């Protein structure tokens, strides 16, 4: 497999506060990479840096092309869909309008309509709520909407920021099952940032441990899962 996303020596800061101190990692074409770490490790900032939402330096290559100097909207147009923390719901628009907004860069009307139905296939609850104001959905439904909306971009890479956050355990398992299915059947590569390490390691093939803006360990997800020392000292399970 070749690398779809390659990040080398990524630094990022909010104002004068440096948050990332030289991260290097990658996502394989068709692969799933996870960044693990506790609160304040810099996981969310990493995704924001990739999308050009914070000041960043370093090399970011997507499908062989440098994107380190592109704006957020141009990065999205290249096929990188960001499912942000807080879900980024357009609260006053309907579920269906939210989904259509995901495809706002596309012109192929019929295919867009088909993709809306496809998203409903993955998340049937969204179909029941299609005409409802998105702000009235539950947390779990909004997370599904955010993922569905990201799919509408027909992305090659999806960045997911703590998809499990604030969801009931049963729902979390269901959601990760759907993410695995998306990865397999839609061929979307995933970069998943998570605190729930057990779950993320089951989904991922590559994993990186982030602590205070640095990568402290990296390897195949399977290895980390089986390495008890790392599990205990970094992941706490």
């Amino acid at each position, binding site marked *: 497999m070749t690398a779809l996303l390659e990040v080398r020596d990524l630094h990022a800061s909010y104002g004068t506060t440096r948050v990332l101190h030289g991260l290097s990692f990658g996502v394989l074409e068709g692969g799933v990479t996870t960044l693990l770490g506790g609160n304040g490790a810099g996981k969310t900032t990493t995704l924001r840096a990739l999308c050009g939402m914070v000041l960043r330096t370093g090399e970011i290559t997507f499908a062989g092309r440098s994107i380190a100097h592109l704006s957020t*909207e*141009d990065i999205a147009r290249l096929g990188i869909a960001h499912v*942000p923390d807080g879900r980024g719901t357009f609260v*006053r628009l309907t579920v269906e309008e939210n989904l259509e907004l995901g495809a*706002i860069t596309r012109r192929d009307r019929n295919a867009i309509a088909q993709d809306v139905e496809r998203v409903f296939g993955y998340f049937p609850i969204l179909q029941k709520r*299609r005409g409802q104001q998105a702000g009235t959905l539950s947390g779990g439904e909004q997370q599904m909407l955010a993922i569905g909306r990201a799919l509408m971009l027909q992305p090659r890479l999806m960045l997911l920021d703590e998809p499990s956050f604030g969801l009931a355990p049963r729902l979390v398992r269901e959601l990760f099952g759907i993410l695995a299915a998306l990865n397999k059947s839609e061929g979307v590569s995933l970069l998943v940032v998570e605190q729930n390490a057990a779950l993320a390691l089951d989904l991922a093939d590559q994993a990186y441990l982030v602590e205070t803006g640095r990568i402290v360990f990296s390897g195949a997800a399977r290895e980390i899962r089986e390495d008890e020392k790392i599990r205990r000292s970094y992941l706490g399970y």
Partner: protein
Amino acid sequence: MLESVPEPAVPDVLAPSLIGRNGLMLALLAVALLLPFVVQNFLIFQLTLVLVYAIAIIGLNLLTGFNGQFSLGHSAFYALGAYVAAMLMDKVDFPYPATLPVAGIACFVFGFLFGLPALRLEGVYLALATFALAVATPQILKLSPLEYWTGGVQGIVINKPDAPFGLPLTQDQWLYFFTLFVTVIMTVLAHNLVASRTGRAMMAIRDNPTAARSMGINIALYKSLTFGVSALYTGIAGALGAIVVQFVAPDSFTFLLSITLLVGLVVGGVGWIPGAFFGGAFVLFVPNFAESISKGLSGAVYGVMIILLIFVLPTGASGLVRAALQRLRAHKIQ
């Protein structure tokens, strides 16, 4: 997985209400067409002004209600539209209907250019910047180097147009129909804009600018374009206002006009286009009504009325109409 999902019930509910909606529109239009034959000339003039305000409020609504940008400077766009129309008629004998597109384009360009630096400002800061624009405009219009064109403090007097093609209409009736014609076009265009993908992008920026960018929406472009279109609407309203009132002068376009439009926007309902007509009627008739209650305290009476209205109808006329429609629909289903 798809098969297990029940058919959505949405289209069935929507279909009859769409017919009902069009029927309601046609009925309202019929009333609007008959009104000038049953009321007196001065009321016709006032109704014409309601329509003019409505166009301006739709412009403000596109910016504030649908795109989330605040403006206390729309009196400046209104003034620009009014002066462009007045100067064209006064200096180069432009036919009055032809002044509207020129005024609209001038305001679009000005609004777009103003929107560019305003991109860096949000919320109260944008409100302040636009406030400065509103305060500066009357003074600029009074400047003596510009006096040849603007008429300085005196302003410009415009001739009242007669009904064309020998139509048996008074001047007031004709101006009413002319304004109504423009209003209908502008309302339909605004409705279509909001329903289009551009409109959806505008609203996405209002709801969540960061997420909108992640969808690939160029926020800078959409925000300044919305500023331009909003200014275009308000400018066309200004041009119509100049033609209807037959007079422009700097002090007709003070900061207070911006507030009047804002009041109309809130009273009609932020983010609801037909609300502009309720808002327009409110800002035109209610101050007069307040004055009839107490000459000395008319401002205070007007203020109390606004406060009461906000208490009773926090979402403006839009909330009232929506509740009524819902009740009607519930009745039908039973």
